[in-house]
């Protein structure tokens, strides 16, 4: 009876821990950035390789992601319909201009969107870097196998070898973005 009770209680305690997530929260292997809870820097050796993809840009040309090898890339998953994406768009527009001279390329992945709305968004926020259309979320799906993308916006910083160095899950602030880029390029904003 006592043994049985102890066994059941032990099982239930384990279940409580699992179910309420008390055991999680230790972000081992990940460093927070700029006191942020949504930005992470993956330590060397734990940087997943970004999947390659070929897709059509909003302006209709074909783009192969592996052609960006050798450059630091900021890959931003967004949608014109997404409120937080609209909030961070001015930040990205500014950062893209500032880091151009440092050889950092910005690329958008336009998720669940239409070309007309996406182009209007880019015009509206003065975004000059290209975006590929991901209306069926297939590119997002590929990336979800290596980083936990739960929605838009998500911003990945990818190093010259194509490895994902850091990520911002949710609205990226200027501070978070420049912190991550400084760690990859070794330079502050140009």
């Amino acid at each position, binding site marked *: 009876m006592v043994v049985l009770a102890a066994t059941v*209680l032990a099982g239930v305690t384990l279940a*409580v821990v*699992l179910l309420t997530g008390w055991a999680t929260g230790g972000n081992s292997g990940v460093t927070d950035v700029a006191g942020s809870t949504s930005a992470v820097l993956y330590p060397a050796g734990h940087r997943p390789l970004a999947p390659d993809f070929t897709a059509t840009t909003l302006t209709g040309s074909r783009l192969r992601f592996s052609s960006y090898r050798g450059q630091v890339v900021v890959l931003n998953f967004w949608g014109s319909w997404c*409120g937080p994406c609209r909030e961070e768009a001015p930040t990205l527009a500014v950062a893209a201009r500032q880091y151009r001279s440092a050889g950092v390329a910005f690329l958008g992945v336009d998720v669940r969107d239409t070309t007309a*709305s996406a182009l*209007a968004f880019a015009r509206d926020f003065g975004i000059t870097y290209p975006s590929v259309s991901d209306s069926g*979320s297939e590119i*997002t799906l590929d990336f*979800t196998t290596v980083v936990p993308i739960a929605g838009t916006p998500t911003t990945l910083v990818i190093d010259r070898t194509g490895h994902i160095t850091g990520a911002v899950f949710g609205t990226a602030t200027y501070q978070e973005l420049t912190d991550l880029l400084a760690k990859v390029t070794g330079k502050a904003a140009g």
Partner: protein
Amino acid sequence: MTDVRAPEADPFESAAEQDDREDRSRDRAAGTLGFADWLKWGWRQLTSMRIALVLLFLLALGSVPGSMLPQEGTDAAGVQQYYTSHPALAPLLNHLGLFNVFAAPWFAAIYLLLFTSLVGCVVPRTFRLAGSARALPPRAPRHLTRLPRSAEYTTVLAPALAAEVAATVLAGHGFRLRRPADASGGAWVSAEKGYLREVGNLLFHLALLGVLVSVALGGLFGYKADRLLVQGTTFADTQSALDEFYPGRLVTAADLGPFTITLNRFDASYITSGAQRGQPASFDAQISYAAYPGGPVRTDQLEVNRPLSVDGAKVYLIGHGYAPVFKVTDARGQVVYDQATPFISGSSGNFLSQGVVKVLDAQPEQLGFTGVFVPTAVEAGGVLESVFPAADNPVVSLIAYAGNLGLNSGVTQSVYQMDTAGMRRLTADPQLLLPGQSLKLPGGQGTITFTGYVPWVSLAITHDPGQLPALICGIAALGGLLLSFMVRRRRVFVRARASGPGTTVQIGGLARTDASGGFEAEFASLAAELRSAHHQAAASRQHEGE
């Protein structure tokens, strides 16, 4: 079930009754004892029926705020709005976990206690039932004539031999036997049959545990999701592409099956005449899908109750509707919106559907339209009605707004609702458009064109690893229950006593249930058989003696 009690007083006491009696006697002693006894006492309380019911009630009570307040998992925008409208109350409610009730520690505590209570009740009972199914029948009572069924006759056989003959007969009928350990207690046989009843009971309890485990399995490793898919579009089974996502506790976004589904075509047909006019005749969604990125593309047909099985998940067709296609040009002549916009039909029937068009990047200011899509429009007394669910005479009715849609500050909004607080109305009356018609907005703000419509379907994606085990356990539980209801435990006792020159044989029998009509006949036939066996044995003895 013990042997020390006289069977007359304890014909068939169930394991459960005995358990409760022991609990009560132990409860009385608990007050004066130490820590270990307090633990035992607490454990017995927890596993009692009363506490289980209290916990069940608490579980129901705890779910109430989950349906009254907006929940983060299902209505994040609603939570944000609640924060705005109740700035003082919202943080307090959030602290209590009331915006995410089903993930709150206190809610988990209730259902885990309930689970513990059930497991703690069922497991010991299972052991007792297993013991009961293996137990030997009790000793034969002294006075068998007091039992509900009895018979008595004399034979010339010696008591020990008479008992031996009776044992052979009863064993031949599949009874489990018990014989005296030594000769001091007299010559008797106890026989019992109907252990399948206990087996059924055991099966029921084990299956019940199985159901609990299966439900837990589903809750931990399963997920549910919804997605609205417009004809001609594709979605991937990844969290950001799902409209609603309810993951199990141990499910992360990476655990979703990486399939993609394209809705190639959707057809609905309706009954066109008679009393059933307007009722759906058939729904048919032609899809193509790939089980993983780059995998082979297959085609399939989704119908109601005919889901697609892909990558361990099931995709059900649960609804459909119309998505009118709008093209909007802004004041500068730029096309700023060109897409099918899903409208949602209310309860009014005939697919009178409502929706909003948010043109977020129109210049110089944002445009918004609230609209109604009427598939078969008829104007009756100045009111537009839909008289048939198919799109036989589609019309949209639009009210135009300009201003600030409130989305640029980073707030998440439902795509089916528009906050007109920062908007000004451009058209006084709703404007009706037929397919191909345009509405020029006043003040040169732009143009909206109703270019056509396409159907959409809503898909429910479920993955429940506990479903099949739960079904199997459910069937097993039912089988066990039937077995325990239909099989009767019954006992037959035979006592042989020397009386004068011969031996008196007493036979007694009892069955567990009151509805012992069947047992009456069974007992009579057994008694007759025993009697004739004793006669035959006596005759052959005499024959040998001669």
